[in-house]
């Protein structure tokens, strides 16, 4: 690769400090055997640990994306409470991990994520309106536009990671330089399919990026119990794959780490694992009561590390954040999302025959018959 933006990619070591305060940073592609280090560029107070590999405009734009994602998340929570959406899985607190990762991708790259990855999927091209339509309980929400290579959010935990191996493999066979990113949680790393996916990717050297959003909990089960490996990143070693642990609440650290992994993949150097350490500030889903299993002060401590606040502080320090800018971001995001909601809610009820029509390219005689019965046209 020759045309690489200055400051991004391999030259990373130059960009990051040698000594950190609470964590030390290390270049992606190197696994710590003890897992104690974590790659971070922006501190929680908004100070930076070194020159950032983005311009101020890019930084502002990433911030705007995170704000928009949060507006969507808040709106969805509210709508679910009003009975306008089916169960909703909020990503509050994980905006940096998702927006940062998606920002590292190129158009046409594949994304295979979960029920909690709306921000990631949106940034990768999945329109809000279709995400919302999906959350109202409508299969048509899964019909992303042509050219947007985002898989529908995986509801089952585990199965979707290996898809990113096949997707990436196909792109290599077709001779494109597209890659596939799969996003999953800390809990998902316990599923056998995580293992098979990591192993296949390593064995066939597919251009796949594994992004684990380690948000501390799998519903009520804490990550400390989920696994005895010191970090999720350490698991990469079992596959001879690079693994890196980043501060998942630092949008730039995530961007850099995922871009590094993506570049490796694009250049035929195979898959990598990126562990983004973050936290789910909200409930698992709207059906969950986190008070049953976790302490308020744990949540409060993580509220302090809010990924949006961190960037806002950084921008404040550079004089690039104002209250009115914030308000205009929120208003504009809100307008766009309201518009998407209005659109989704205006989509006519599914017809009873729809479900028969979308089973196969051509409905089987059996389905044609059942469709007639169902629609009373038989």
């Amino acid at each position, binding site marked *: 690769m020759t045309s690489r933006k200055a400051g991004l990619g391999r030259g990373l070591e130059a960009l990051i400090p040698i000594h950190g305060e609470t964590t030390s940073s290390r270049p992606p592609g190197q696994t710590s055997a003890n897992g104690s280090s974590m790659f971070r560029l922006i501190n929680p107070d908004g100070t930076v640990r070194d020159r950032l590999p983005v311009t101020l405009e890019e930084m502002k734009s990433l911030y705007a994306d995170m704000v928009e994602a949060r507006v969507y998340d808040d709106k969805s929570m509210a709508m679910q409470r009003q009975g306008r959406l*089916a*169960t909703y899985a909020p990503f509050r607190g994980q905006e940096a991990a998702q927006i940062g990762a998606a920002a590292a991708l190129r158009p046409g790259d594949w994304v295979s994520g979960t*029920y909690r990855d709306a921000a990631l999927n949106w940034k990768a091209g999945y329109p809000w309106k279709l995400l919302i339509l*999906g959350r*109202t*309980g*409508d*299969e048509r929400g899964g019909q992303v536009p042509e050219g947007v290579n985002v898989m529908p959010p995986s*509801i*089952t*935990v*585990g*199965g979707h990671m290996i898809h990113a191996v096949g997707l990436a493999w196909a792109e290599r066979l077709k001779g494109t330089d597209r890659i596939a990113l799969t996003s999953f949680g800390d*809990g*998902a790393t*316990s*599923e*056998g*399919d995580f293992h098979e996916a990591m192993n296949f990717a390593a064995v066939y050297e597919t251009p796949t990026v594994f992004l684990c959003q380690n948000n501390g909990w*799998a*519903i*009520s*089960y804490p990550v400390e*119990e*989920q*696994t005895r490996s010191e970090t999720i990143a350490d698991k990469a070693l079992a596959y001879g794959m690079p693994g890196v642990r980043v501060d998942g609440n630092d949008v730039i650290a995530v961007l850099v780490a995922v871009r590094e992994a993506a570049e490796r993949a694009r250049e035929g150097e195979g898959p990598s694992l990126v562990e983004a350490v973050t936290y789910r500030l909200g409930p698992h889903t709207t*059906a*969950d*009561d986190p008070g*049953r*299993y976790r302490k308020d002060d744990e949540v409060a401590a993580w509220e302090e590390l809010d990924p949006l606040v961190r960037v806002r502080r950084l921008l404040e320090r550079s004089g690039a954040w104002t209250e009115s800018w914030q308000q205009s971001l929120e208003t504009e995001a809100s307008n766009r999302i309201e518009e998407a909601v209005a659109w989704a809610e205006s989509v006519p*009820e*599914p017809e*009873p025959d*729809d*479900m*028969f029509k979308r*089973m196969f390219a051509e409905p089987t005689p*059996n*389905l044609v018959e*059942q469709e007639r019965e*169902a629609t009373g046209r038989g």
Partner: protein
Amino acid sequence: MAELNIAQAINSALDTALSSDDRVLILGEDVGRAGGVFRVTDGLRNRYGAERVVDTPVAESGIIGAAFGLAVAGMRPVAEIQFLGFSYPAYDQIVNHVARIRNRTNHRHTSPMVIRMPYGGGIGAAEHHSESTEAVYVHIPGLKVVVPSTPKDARGLLLAAIEDPDPVIFLEPIRLYRAVKEHVPDIYYTVDIGPLRVEREGSDITLVSWGAMMRETRQAAGILAEAGVSVEVLDLRTLSPLDRDGIVASVEKTGRAVIVHEAPLTAGLGAEIAATIQERALYSLKTPVRRVTGWDTVFPLKRSEHHYLPSVDRIVAAAESALED
């Protein structure tokens, strides 16, 4: 004797089993701290400790495989799979190991264990949360499959399943969890695995169903009865082994049958029931056995669920057409 709904009745059975048999332990995702995503195991971890009510990593094959080992070595594990639609990663463990160890070792090793799985649609859930694929377990030799539709049966069947020397899949109808309450004895009692329950006697037509679809079936029976039809309603309760004699006896009397299930039609359990009826009671049949089932489509999302789930109307219409013949 308390007024309990199905979820509470299951909780009470687990409580009874944990307190009366040291070998019993519960394991599954979120069964401990959270008390289960449906609160069915609520309070049990506090009462019996984290060693006996065990939260597990997110790994269904691991849960079933570990429970299997526990059972072989003398424990009585009750494993929970959060939703039937999440049981497929454990299908190999269930089919190739849990169901077979007695056969493979000519009774030397056995796997007395229970696998609880909430199942069924109607709650507007996300993908895979609404499955009702009981047939893919009923088809597997070596398993028993039960499903209650009342609180009393829930407690009695679950205690029977835990007592059973062989593996039992215990399906829990999600949309009935809190639908009805009834007096449930708090003494230790079991409901036999095997026999169906004649819920309503009648002589014109037999309605056969189980689990969650019992609600619509009961309603349909009510409507038919009001219209003067003498309806017999069978709640199968045990899907494997099937109470063929009970089904056939009813249809020999009525000559007409409608089977109701929410799984897809093709190769669903209704097929086995209809096949059995025609095998053993063909000459009593006045009209073909009807099946009112889910369609041969993926279980749809919230907005289309009502187009998918067998409705009271469809059941009544099928019965009426059977009665017209």
